[in-house]
């Protein structure tokens, strides 16, 4: 029940700050649109394919990336690393009778829902005006699995970012690490180009990382590019990454809290 209360309190805050959410959403909007413009121009206004993908497939990918970027992508590292540890506000949360991991996980969901909602609106407008540019699955079984994959995508993203955030126990200024991981996320998560377009050796490395399971595969799932077997495989991998990073977080948390001084920088 307390987590439900945390969710609704954060929902109120996120809703009262909806102007800021719109601005955050613009960032999730501009990059995919820019890459779409690039491919549209690169394919000669959509007249030829790139790596077997038509302009319809490419545009679907980037339009869905707008929603995925605002709905699945967690920013828990900043909340934990900067606001709580670097600023010394973690002390308040250590005294509360809730799991720190679960509290942050739930606190961010309202922000994702509101920003994702803007993404859905833009996507629907795109579908309305450029309907023939968007390919999506319509199979009910696939849609149900896609919803599971979407929720797990946020959980994967959160688990990774939470671990980066608590690195601030030792690094204090954790931004260097966060920026390095962000770059790997942008490339291996499929933010710049679909992994299929990457040179094969980079694609192979990217598939060994958790990031494609937080962004790339959920988008492919919604596009209907994965079979039911592959969808279950993605879910399995997502659960594996969540457990792995949750385990890592638990170990690091126990050690990190002993390092925490509560003094802000």
């Amino acid at each position: 029940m307390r987590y439900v209360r945390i969710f609704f309190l954060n929902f109120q805050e996120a809703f009262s700050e909806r102007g800021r959410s719109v601005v955050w959403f613009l960032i999730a909007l501009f990059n995919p649109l820019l890459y779409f413009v690039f491919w549209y121009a690169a394919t000669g206004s959509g007249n030829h394919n790139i790596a077997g993908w038509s302009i319809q497939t490419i545009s679907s990918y980037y339009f869905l990336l707008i929603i995925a970027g605002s709905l699945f992508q967690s920013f828990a590292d900043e909340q934990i690393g900067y606001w709580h540890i670097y600023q010394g506000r973690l002390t308040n949360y250590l005294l509360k009778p809730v799991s720190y991991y679960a509290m942050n996980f739930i606190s961010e969901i309202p922000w994702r829902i509101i920003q994702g909602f803007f993404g859905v609106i833009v996507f629907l407008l795109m579908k309305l005006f450029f309907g023939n540019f968007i390919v999506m699955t319509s199979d009910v079984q696939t849609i149900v699995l896609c919803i599971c994959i979407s929720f797990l995508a946020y959980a994967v993203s959160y688990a990774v970012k939470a671990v980066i955030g608590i690195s601030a126990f030792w690094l204090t200024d954790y931004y260097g690490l966060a920026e390095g991981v962000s770059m790997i996320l942008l490339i291996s998560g499929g933010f710049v180009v679909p992994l299929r377009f990457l040179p094969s050796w980079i694609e192979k490395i990217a598939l060994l990382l958790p990031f494609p399971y937080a962004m790339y595969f959920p988008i492919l799932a919604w596009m209907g590019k994965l079979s039911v077997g592959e969808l279950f495989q993605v879910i399995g991998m997502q659960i594996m990454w969540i457990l792995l990073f949750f385990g890592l977080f638990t170990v690091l948390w126990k050690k990190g809290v002993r390092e925490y001084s509560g003094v802000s920088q």
Partner: protein
Amino acid sequence: MIMKQYIRVYWKLFFLNVTSLTAYRSGLISNLISSTVWALFPFISIFLLTANTPVLFGWRREEVIFLSTMYAVYYGVFQMVFAKNFLRLAVLINTGEIESFFLKPIDGQFLVSVSRVGVTAFVRVIIGIGFGYFFGKQLGISVSFIDGILLLIALFCSLMLLYAVWMNILLFLIWNPKLSNLVEVLFTISGMARYPSNMYRMVNETLMYVLLPLSLTTVVPVKILFHNISWQDYFLLGGVSIVLCGIARLFWLFAMRFYTSSSS
């Protein structure tokens, strides 16, 4: 005389920033890593985007990458001189703390714009110049003394143009202080200058004209080095930057009349 005074103040501010950066070693290392990562990212993304396409919008792959190097150089200088100040300006407007800048015996806009220096962003400039030199050699670009002077002037105009665009947009925060995260959107929008303007024209003519000021900032310096620049290009870049800087100054004076100093 006044110019000399401003240069002396800037010099002092620069050393204060260096001192404060070196005071925290972990902060310095973190900043250096972050600058290196973001210096490399435009090149990596262009490499990946162009991996399947040898010719883009009439530009060869190497030429598009060379365009990125030019972007990296002037954007690196922008990060060094202005970016941190714009991040702080957004916060100052939100928290209602700009007035301390008006109490100093120096122009408020100048002080707000340059008092913080992103010292570690020099890494971006160096990496940009390094890549530029490498790809310039591959493209057989030779730079004469005159080219060098013209290039420096063009890069200065590009820098001022970008400054003016950011200032003109961020001043709207005076009326909406809560939207201080608008500055993050500007980082994203500025990245649009990495691509040739033809790319936008192929999608929509209007889009190209909207993004023209940003495209000019990289395309004109590159045209100087490719020796296919016309006088219209010089006048366009120079003219647009002077006009936008003038508007930024007038808008600053106008917006400050509505500044209430109350925190949101």
